[in-house]
């Protein structure tokens, strides 16, 4: 009799164990159903976005400049491009980062937010147009891509970014 009741308990444990496996499979499934990563190369995204922008007053920044302005190490990511204004009274910028690991998106987004705050502080009080552009800047995180733009054409650039993924 005791043996039977013990067996019952073991059967309950076994049932619970399989229920746990089922629950974890459902959990993984729900995670996978979320937003997917894009396989588009960073060059493709870059050319789609830059086609919508006026780059005459901008230049492609080096990795060192990216580190200086954003604190980001370009080598840590699958791809990262930064365009900055050639004239230091302009605030137009474009940052596109393709991360290797989704957990990196937080760092990049925080870096973009922090850059925006720094620029707003720099131009606060005298650069009305610059502050306006900065306030209209767009930061968008889509799967494994982060997009940050400060430009009069920010909305078009964002549209091109989303279309290229």
């Amino acid at each position, binding site marked *: 009799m005791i043996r039977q009741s*013990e067996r019952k308990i073991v059967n309950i444990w*076994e049932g619970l*164990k399989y229920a746990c496996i089922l629950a974890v499979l459902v959990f993984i499934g729900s995670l996978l159903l979320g937003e997917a*990563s894009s*396989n588009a190369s960073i060059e493709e995204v870059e050319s789609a976005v830059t086609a919508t922008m006026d780059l005459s007053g901008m230049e492609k920044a080096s990795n*060192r400049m990216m*580190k200086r302005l954003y604190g980001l190490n*370009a080598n840590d990511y699958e791809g990262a491009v930064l365009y900055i204004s050639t004239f230091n009274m302009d605030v137009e910028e474009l940052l596109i980062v393709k991360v290797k690991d989704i957990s990196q998106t937080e760092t990049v987004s925080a870096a973009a937010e922090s850059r925006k705050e720094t620029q707003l502080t720099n131009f606060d009080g005298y650069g009305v147009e610059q502050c306006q552009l900065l306030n209209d800047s767009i930061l968008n995180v889509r799967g494994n891509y982060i997009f940050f733009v400060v430009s009069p054409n920010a909305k078009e650039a964002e549209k091109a970014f989303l279309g290229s993924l």
Partner: protein
Amino acid sequence: MIFSSIFFLYVFLPITLLLYFLMPKPGKNIVLLIVSLIFYAWGEPIYVFLMLFSIIFNYLTGMEIEAYREEGEERRVRFCFWLAVGVNLGLLGFFKYYGFFLENLNAILPFDIPYKELPLPVGISFYTFQTLSYVIDVYWGKVKVQKNVLSFGLYVTMFPQLIAGPIVQYSDIERQLKKRKTTLTKFGEGTTWFLRGLGKKVLLANNIGMAFDAINAIPKGELSVLAAWVGCLAYTMQIYYDFGGYSDMAIGLGKMFGFEFVKNFEYPYISKSITEFWRRWHISLSSWFRDYVYIPLGGNRVSTPKCIRNIFIVWILTGFWHGAAWNFMIWGLYYGILLCLEKYVFKSFLERMPEFLKHVYTMFFVMIGWGFFFSTSMGDAFGYLGAMFGMNGMPLVDSNARYYLMSNLWILVICVICATPAAYRWFRSFAFSRGKYRVGISVLLYGGILLLSTAYLVNATYNPFLYFRF
């Protein structure tokens, strides 16, 4: 949440200590379990579910193995065991390697399989190895089954070692989960371990890490030989103080709550061979692979070809454990080759080598190894290693190299000195052997570390933790 953050130091830890010490003995494990889950959920609110699954699943597996064994149903015991191994490794494999697998598959297929890369649950590599150690030890009959689900939950989630180890084997902690002593002396000892670790992480690793990041940001084609070596040395020091410091903090926190964790680092950079280096570096991981992979495969008690096979299996797995990237695999393979060469080819030659050259030889190969480790791809690794040997056509020394060397000379010298036991011996004799001023000097020194680290953490935005990604 990381230990080297203002919130942890001044809010989370004091509250946890207060709750823990106010709670009567029977409730102490529950307090630790709850705060550990909060600690984990703080950064991983979704993945805490995965951890709860791991606790319940492995707990039930242990109970089942014992029940079936008592009934003499060995076939069911084996089934339960292999199912648990499969589920644990399956989860680790899925979260850590599925993106890597699909990426490589897409590279060879004529079409792309769309996939969503999931963020790696923090600490999954560490706690999966801990739960595996429990299931394997129960299966082997090395330990008794843990019948208290709260104690088992605490073993898996204990916040001091949850994020980055040391990987605590169940057999090492089994008794402590039930009975442990928290004395004032042990608490004080834990505090000194924690503060030394904090100093290593915040004052040394973070500072030298900035030098490495700056050098690594220079395009590989523009790196002079000296700049590349300075960068590599900076990383060599950063990873040691970053991971070693974090391990010291974990051990210290463990002591504060009455636990004794295994040492994870034992001055690895004073090693005189690669074999010795791996006896001193990330000891808990090496021990895990030794106990659960190398020895079950036959270890070195088999023929030479089989022993070589065992070494390679362990080292490829070690590389793979560190991350889903080819450079980690190559890094593991690199150490497999070096260890085989030391064991079977150059053993007598190395033994005859002058002591100083043994150190140079070891550090040379360890630093080359870090070149594979810190790179983000194989191309990146060969680019950097090529620069270290002047293969990019750059001169031996340039202005960048001079600047980075001179501006980081002091911190590099301090890092090198502190990597030897002499520095700690000196520190200890200074802090603990001054008669009646002993306590005052000790408080002053450790208080100084806390104060400096706090000042640094308040001001600096650079506070990464390298082993988070593993």
